[in-house]
Each structure stands twice: as structure tokens, then as C-alpha cells.
């Protein structure tokens, strides 16, 4: 039942990412709900489900991404693993903690992604990181926190909390 719910939630996030996200872009900056989902999932479920989810989601994203196949999968796998390992020591319901946790996790993801994507070229990496990664991470964090708070207000069963 729990797995079904996770799959259902993943499908909803995939649909949101494929539909709404393109329409709420601000100056070309789009939130990446899939990274946020991976971070949240790994944080709540632990390393093994988190890594499995991250790899699957990353691979799905790679199908449409300009980079090499597997790059998103690798970046998300690493981030999910780190989040799952570090998340046990973090207070989950605090808004400030959530904000910095999401933001930091997404920035780590983008460091890995753009680091490999740009082939270690510092100028290109800095440009991508400054103009794509940071705004996108901030935007995604805000959107995700809004979605989470809305979901928490209406139904606790939608959330993945306390099920590790």
C-alpha cells in the first residue's frame, strides 16, 4: 500500500513537472520538482528506497535531458544517499531546517550535474551554477515548501513523514 502511494505520488510529481512547471517559469527559471521529490523521499524513507527512487527518477529525466544518459541518475543517486544519511539527524518539521536542507541538497545536485556536464570547465560551470542552479534551487525550495505546507494542512496521509 505504501509503495503504491509512493508510485502514485511520483506520477503526480512527474505530471506536475511536465505540465505546470513550464508555465510558472520566472525569467526562464523553472523549479525542478523531481529533485525536490527525490530529496524529500530519501529524507523520509531512508537510503535504499531513496537511492532506488533517485536512480529511477534521474534516468527518466535523462531521457529528455541534453546531457549524457545517466548523468541525472548519478547526481540524484548521490544526493539521495547523502540526504538519507544526513537526514536522520535533522529536525524534519521545522520550516527553516527544511528550507536550508532542500536548498543545500539541490545545490549539491547541481554541483554534481553541472560539474560533469561542463566537463570541469570552470567558467562554464560558474555561469551555469550562478544563473541556473542557484535561482532554480531557490525557486524550487519555495515552491516545494508551499506545496508541503498546503498538503500538510489538508491531509496528513499525503505526506511521507514518519514512515522510515
Amino acid at each position: 500500500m505504501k509503495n503504491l502511494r509512493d508510485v502514485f505520488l511520483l506520477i503526480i510529481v512527474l505530471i506536475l513537472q511536465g505540465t505546470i512547471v513550464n508555465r510558472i517559469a520566472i525569467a526562464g527559471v523553472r523549479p525542478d520538482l523531481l529533485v525536490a521529490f527525490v530529496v524529500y523521499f530519501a529524507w523520509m524513507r531512508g537510503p535504499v528506497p531513496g537511492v532506488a527512487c533517485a536512480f529511477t527518477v534521474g534516468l527518466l529525466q535523462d531521457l529528455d535531458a541534453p546531457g549524457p544518459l545517466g548523468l541525472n541518475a548519478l547526481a540524484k543517486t548521490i544526493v539521495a544517499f547523502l540526504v538519507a544519511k544526513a537526514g536522520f539527524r535533522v529536525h524534519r518539521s521545522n520550516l527553516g531546517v527544511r528550507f536550508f536542507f532542500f536548498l543545500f541538497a539541490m545545490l549539491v545536485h547541481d554541483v554534481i550535474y553541472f560539474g560533469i556536464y561542463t566537463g570541469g570547465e570552470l567558467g562554464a560551470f560558474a555561469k551555469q551554477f550562478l544563473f541556473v542552479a542557484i535561482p532554480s534551487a531557490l525557486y524550487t525550495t519555495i515552491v516545494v515548501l508551499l506545496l508541503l505546507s498546503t498538503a500538510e494542512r489538508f491531509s496528513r496521509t499525503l505526506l511521507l513523514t514518519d514512515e522510515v
Partner: protein
Amino acid sequence: MFRLLFARRSDWAAFTVACVLSLTLMSLGRGQQERAVWFIQHTILSPVNAVVGWVDAGVGVYWENQKLKKRLAQIQMEADAMRTDRVENARLRRLLDLSQENPSDLTAARVTARSLDRLGGSLTIDKGSKDGVLPERAVITPEGLVGRVERCTAHEARVLTLLHHDCAVAVRVGRSRVDGVLQWEFGDRPTLNLLYVSAREDVKKGDWVMTSGLGGIFPEGVRVGTVAKVGIAESGLTKEISVKPAVDFRSLEEVMVYMPEGSGHGPRMPALEAVAPDSVPAPAPPQQNAASPALKPSPEKARTGPGTQASAPGDSANEEVR
């Protein structure tokens, strides 16, 4: 050993496997990667893509609908504004025509307020003594007489309309040249009555009523209204005549104040004969040579000025009316 490793360190094992798989995919050649992508997209992901496409189309329609609704509201507002401008433009053109006919006699003014009391009958205009508007000046529109200025400040003036009891007007029936006084009476049935007309006088329903110039306030020949009802008073000596005003007082927005120290010709209104008697008259186009023969004052009047003396039956203007 692997089983032991997976049993004890399943998290690390999962992580390692995922990383190795990812790196393997990354290390594939471009052709192999494309084949893998094609395979995944056309087997696993095709239903997901279909769902996403369907939802996206739905969301797109919703989004577009919202945009179109907003745009429609904007266009509706613009159309309303244009319609208002068009009506105002037509009204101002008619005022302009009248003003051009009488360049030195009339001053245009905008109605800034209407009376708030239940009896009504007064307006406030945005011209005052600084603009030459003084008490007892006639106020007209292309449709006809509005009333007179009661009092004024430097930049505003209060106008008593025909629908005020204190605004009595000396008038004449255009067809039969019968004189009388037009006055608003606020009784059980508020009406604009033509008073002091003998029972033997010839007044019929549909006759035009215009100012006679008697009294010195209103210039002669300004249209006032049409006779709506004719009866005999209980005493049998006078007629009871109701007049329907030519001006629609509910929709007044601009008026002209008559300035007698101008050329003194008085306002030349559109010809009465051209207008259906029972309807509010549409103004005739401006004419170069004495637009309305019915209302064009005689040369004598032009010299003496309108409203300064009564027009006797038989003078040129009256003859033309007949």
C-alpha cells in the same frame, strides 16, 4: 561475500549499484545511448507520456481559457469606453455646431453635479463668473432650453432647470403665437404646465413651444418642448396645458450658457418643422445662412438684442414660424 555485504550494508550496496549503473550508461557511446533512450521511451514511458500529454493539453486549455477571459474583459472594457467616447463625441459635436452658429453668444459648460434633494430641478456647471457666467443667464442645449443660472461663484454656477418651480419661462406656442408662462408644478402629478392661456386660444396637442423673449432672461425662439395634453380648467376660463420638455434632463452632461452681450442674435436652434412633434428632436446640421428660418431673429431684434423686448405678432420671425 556479496550477500553478506548486501545484508549488512544494503544502503551502501544500493548506492554503489546505482552509481555503477549510472556511470555505465554515461560511458556508453552516443548510438547506444540513443538506442537505450528509444527503448525506454517506447516501452516503459509511453503510457506515462500519454498521460502527461493529456494532462498538459487539459492544463493548456485551462490556461488559455483564463488568458482569453482576461483578454475578453479588457476588450469589453475598451469597447465600453469607446462607446462612451462615441456618444460623448456626438453630443459635443452638436454643441459645437450650435456654438459655431453663435460664436460670441454661447459658452459651453460641463454639468458637474445634479441636485440631491427629492424635488430636484437644479444642476451645477463648471463655469462661473470668471468665465462670464452670471445669474439670470439662459442655459440651453441643442435640444432646447434647460433653464437659467440662479447663482454663481468664480468657477461654478447653479442652474435652475425647467423642472424647478422657481424657473418660470415666458413662452409662445409656435403654431398659433399664443403666449403663456411655463412653470413646473410639483403636485400629485408633477408636470410642466403652460399657464395663463385663455380657453379660447388655439393650442393643440403636438404644438411646439418656444421662448417668447418676454422677461428679458431667455432669448426669443429657443425651443422648450411640445404640448402633451390640452384641457379646460374647472373655472372654464383658462386652458390646462401640459408641456413635454424638449431636453432630457436625466442625461444632461454638457450645456451652453447664453451670453447676451455677445452678438445679440440669440441662439439659432435647428428648424422645428424638421422634427417630429412627439419625439425629442434631433438637431439639424449646421447651416451657413441662418440655419433656422423659424428661429432666426429679425434684423430689428439683432440690433436690440434678444430678450430685451417682446416680439409682437406679425414681425418677420413670427411670420416665418407661421
